């Protein structure tokens, strides 16, 4: 029996185990929507903006480890989803995006709502396909899922012209895929792994530097074994949070621009950096020429281009983290003995000293304005037993979430690292909630960022996705203001939001629940109330507007030269100083 392109599309998704599709219709994809409407296996979540659909697919993918899937129409549908594709590309998120296209006979004619979807998405997808013949559709979709989820994951676009979705063909779904130009290396080179094991045995001041790759490959168990067996401290990147338990005594927390003091010092002074599934981003290396001056570098990564892109590597190992770590652990198990610990005692003494010298700090006055760190800390303490999934937007609140929300397990952390996309958090949280209806999903948002995809509250209410949004409302593009305070003499060019909507009323307007923390004493009670609600909730928390996020390594600075607190002139200014007018503060605090 012959099926239409639209039916083939649905059959393929079913074979790939897709249960949820984030989508927004339009002319050229109506046939597909019409066919979706007549089946029950795949739930369609109707978003209010295609960017939302894209981020939801990302959140779904990050939380489940499977591909997230979205469907958009041609022209503006496609251009709207580009930000999410670019985000997924930077953070290696497996997303398969289907876009509608004008009929094949009209391609290139500037037809209504035509866009060059392949050209637009080429620089921000791992691969993209234009399906010109319905007979190729099934095989193309199979390849799309295969490419998105294997090797270094990433977004793949499949562009389906209208006539292809209407035309009929026999349906057969291929069992396997073989692409001659695409064969990711999974097994690491054995000789190199042996070299790595030897270097680890010899090192006096080793450090594990782990990133998103550990999460993608599901290598947390292997990482834990490696770290415990060798007693090596673990630094996590922003994307690696959760790959190693945040409360573990070997955890140094996050490293990099806003990483902890001990994480950055241990990295800088180490004699062996063991990088696993991390890509030496400039927010981590700081000034490249002075990065880890005393260290040999081992780098395990599935993508050869990540290796030696920014930093010289002594022992490169191309392969999957999990596979490589298993092999490495096996070698080490046979050689490690009690002496390792003794050998490294001076290193640990040093690290504990750093830890004690400059732990993460903030000061919450009893009756003073709410400090953002306090909100994250209490949220963490109140929810950690429920194993929540935590999404963030982009800005200071994101960094405080990274510092104070200590994740125990992988796939619980949804954040935009590479592209730093404001507006990512809420839809990503919804995507995760759609995958896990019974889990607690939190979104730690900024008052600026949340407004970039606020419209998705309608989706959350409609599709019953009870995400708990906690807005750290400082009245500012806080991260921008912080840079202005530190590097632009406190001139707040376009960082003061001026006016923010009443988020409580806004939530209510959408049919969700809105709550506000009026003073620090109410914090726990309001958070608890939010957590007990089974609807989407916005908790608006007006926070101290001038709080800055430390430690901080200025862009291009050196990793051991962190700013640890407000410089004196800034402190003066904040304690009733010159430039910040009282009106400023008032509007901000009551926003």
């Amino acid at each position, binding site marked *: 029996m012959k099926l239409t392109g639209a039916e083939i599309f649905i059959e393929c998704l079913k074979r790939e185990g897709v249960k949820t599709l984030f989508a927004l219709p339009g002319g050229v994809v109506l046939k597909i929507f019409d066919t979706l409407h007549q089946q029950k296996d795949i739930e369609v979540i109707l978003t209010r903006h295609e960017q939302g659909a894209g981020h939801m697919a990302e959140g779904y993918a990050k939380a489940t480890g499977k591909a997230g899937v979205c469907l958009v129409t041609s022209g503006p549908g496609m251009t709207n989803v580009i930000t999410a594709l670019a985000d997924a590309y930077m953070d290696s998120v497996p997303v398969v995006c289907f876009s509608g296209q004008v009929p094949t006979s009209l391609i290139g004619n500037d037809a209504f709502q035509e866009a060059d979807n392949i050209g637009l998405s080429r620089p921000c997808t791992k691969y993209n396909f234009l399906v010109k013949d319905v007979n190729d559709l099934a095989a193309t979709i199979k390849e799309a899922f295969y490419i998105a989820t294997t090797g270094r994951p990433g977004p793949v676009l499949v562009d389906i012209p209208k006539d292809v979705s209407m035309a009929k063909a026999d349906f057969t779904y291929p069992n396997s895929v073989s692409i001659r130009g695409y064969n990711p290396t999974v097994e690491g080179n054995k000789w190199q792994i042996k070299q790595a094991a030897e270097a680890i045995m010899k090192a006096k001041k080793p450090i594990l530097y782990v990133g998103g790759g550990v999460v993608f490959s599901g290598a947390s168990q292997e990482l834990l074994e490696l770290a415990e067996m060798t007693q090596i401290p673990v630094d996590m990147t922003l994307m690696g949070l959760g790959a190693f338990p945040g409360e573990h005594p070997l955890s140094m927390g996050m490293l990099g621009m806003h990483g902890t003091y001990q994480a950055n010092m241990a990295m800088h002074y180490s004699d062996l950096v063991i990088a696993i599934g991390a890509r030496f981003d400039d927010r981590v290396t700081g000034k490249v020429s002075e990065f880890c001056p005393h260290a040999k570098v081992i780098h395990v990564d599935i993508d*050869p281009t990540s290796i030696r892109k920014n930093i010289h590597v002594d022992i490169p190992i191309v392969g999957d983290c999990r596979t490589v770590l298993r092999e490495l652990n096996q070698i080490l198990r046979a050689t490690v003995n009690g002496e390792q610990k003794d050998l490294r005692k001076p290193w640990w003494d040093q690290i504990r000293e750093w830890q004690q010298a400059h732990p993460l700090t903030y000061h919450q006055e009893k009756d003073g304005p709410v400090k953002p760190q306090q909100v994250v800390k209490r949220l963490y303490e109140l929810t950690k037993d429920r194993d929540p999934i935590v999404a963030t937007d982009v800005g200071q609140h994101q960094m405080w979430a990274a510092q104070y929300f200590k994740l125990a397990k992988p796939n619980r952390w949804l954040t935009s690292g590479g592209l730093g996309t404001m507006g990512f958090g809420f839809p990503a949280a919804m995507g995760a909630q759609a995958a896990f209806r019974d889990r607690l999903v939190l979104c730690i948002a900024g008052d600026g960022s949340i407004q970039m995809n606020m419209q998705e509250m309608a989706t959350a209410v409609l599709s019953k996705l009870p995400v708990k949004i906690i807005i750290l409302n400082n009245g500012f593009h806080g991260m921008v203001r912080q840079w202005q305070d530190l590097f632009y003499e406190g001139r707040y060019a376009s960082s003061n939001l001026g006016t923010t909507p009443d988020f409580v009323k806004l939530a209510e307007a959408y049919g969700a629940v809105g709550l506000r923390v009026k003073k620090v004493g109410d914090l726990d009670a309001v958070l608890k109330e939010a957590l007990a609600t089974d609807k989407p909730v916005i908790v608006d928390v007006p926070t101290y507007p001038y709080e800055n996020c430390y430690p901080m390594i200025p862009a291009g600075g050196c990793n051991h030269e962190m700013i640890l607190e407000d410089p004196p002139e800034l402190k003066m200014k904040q304690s009733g100083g010159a430039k910040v007018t009282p009106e400023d503060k008032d509007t901000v605090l009551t926003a």
Partner: protein
Amino acid sequence: MEHIISVTVENKFGVLSRVAGLFSGRGFNIESLSVAPTLDPSMSQMTIVTSGDERIIEQIVKQLNKLIDVIKVVDLNETEFVSRETAIIKVHTKDVDRAEALRIVDIFRANVIDSTPTTYTIEVSGDPKKIEAIINLLQPLGIKELVRTGRVAVAREPVRPAAVQAKKVARE
């Protein structure tokens, strides 16, 4: 330093833009790029002349390999190779110049592939130095038009000792 990179790619729609986009998007240099189908019509062969320090060339090779439509990448500078480029040069020729032009064509073993009373169209192949040299000599006559193919190159077969080669032939 200049490198010649030989890239075997899928012969399909959009591949050239993926390769070109990679170079422009990452700020890599392309001096020349030539592309044509291979004996196997499902594949095309590209020869890319680029330049950069060791680290950049390593990235270029890796990034090319990462492209899904790329089947094989060889940095020819890692072996011995032979390369050729063809130029077609249209020169003005006044009466007195015609003999001079032919002399130059002769020296460079070039060919005249078209002629009018006032022009010669000359075809020349060789390594880039040779092409530069003939252009320099023809310039005083007045070059009307010049097109160059960009370089194509192949690795040299390793020369095996005669004895070994003989054995192999015998076995075959």
